[in-house]
């Protein structure tokens, strides 16, 4: 991993189109600004990981999954 030391207000450029700027540092909290083309998705890592995990769990649906769920929806719901 490339490690760089930056001060508040300094930036890092990644490739031609992505700039990461350290906006503010307070204690152990760092605010970071990211400028990237719209085609580049930027997410908090933990959110992205959680989404990937949820997608992977959802993808194991077998062929009858939709039919099973439809049938359950047609049954009156327990109140």
């Amino acid at each position: 991993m490339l490690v760089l030391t930056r001060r508040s207000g300094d930036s890092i450029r990644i490739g031609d189109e992505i700039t990461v700027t350290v906006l503010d540092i307070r204690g152990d909290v760092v605010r970071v600004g990211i400028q990237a083309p719209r085609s580049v998705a930027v997410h908090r890592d933990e959110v992205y990981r959680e989404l990937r995990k949820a997608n992977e769990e959802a993808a194991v649906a077998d062929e009858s999954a939709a039919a099973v769920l439809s049938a359950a929806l047609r049954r009156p719901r327990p109140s």
Partner: protein
Amino acid sequence: MSVLVATRPRGGTVTDSTTDRTTPAIGDLPTIEFRAPIPGFPEHREFVLVSSSDDDPVYTLVSVRQPVLRFVVVPPAPFFPDYAPEIGEQVLEQLATTDPADLLVLLIVTMGDTPAGATANLLAPLVVSQSTRRAVQVILTEDLPIRAPLLH
């Protein structure tokens, strides 16, 4: 629901006469193209949306490349009537559409051990343009659950 959905009996198959192999009949269905991969599935960009009948709110999103990869998806309205995700300009741009009415929102369902345990992902809906047939999975900035019980 829309022009994107192919209605056919579940389990419908075609036999490829050259190989004599039976595969799910997805080749002739309208293909949805994901402009960015669904997180976790970078190899799969093209899907088809299949429904068993017009009045069934449960759909299956099947990978063209590998039909064993499939997601159960539902429109939010029957299950979460108050759900109104804010779709930004950036998403419209990715989908090459300008008309919000053109958008179809679908939620990915994770099947539990029983149907009662099924959950829907409200944080990251699939947004599809019905005119351009492009789609993206949008991670909303709102505070929404990634696993919301479907039969609540």
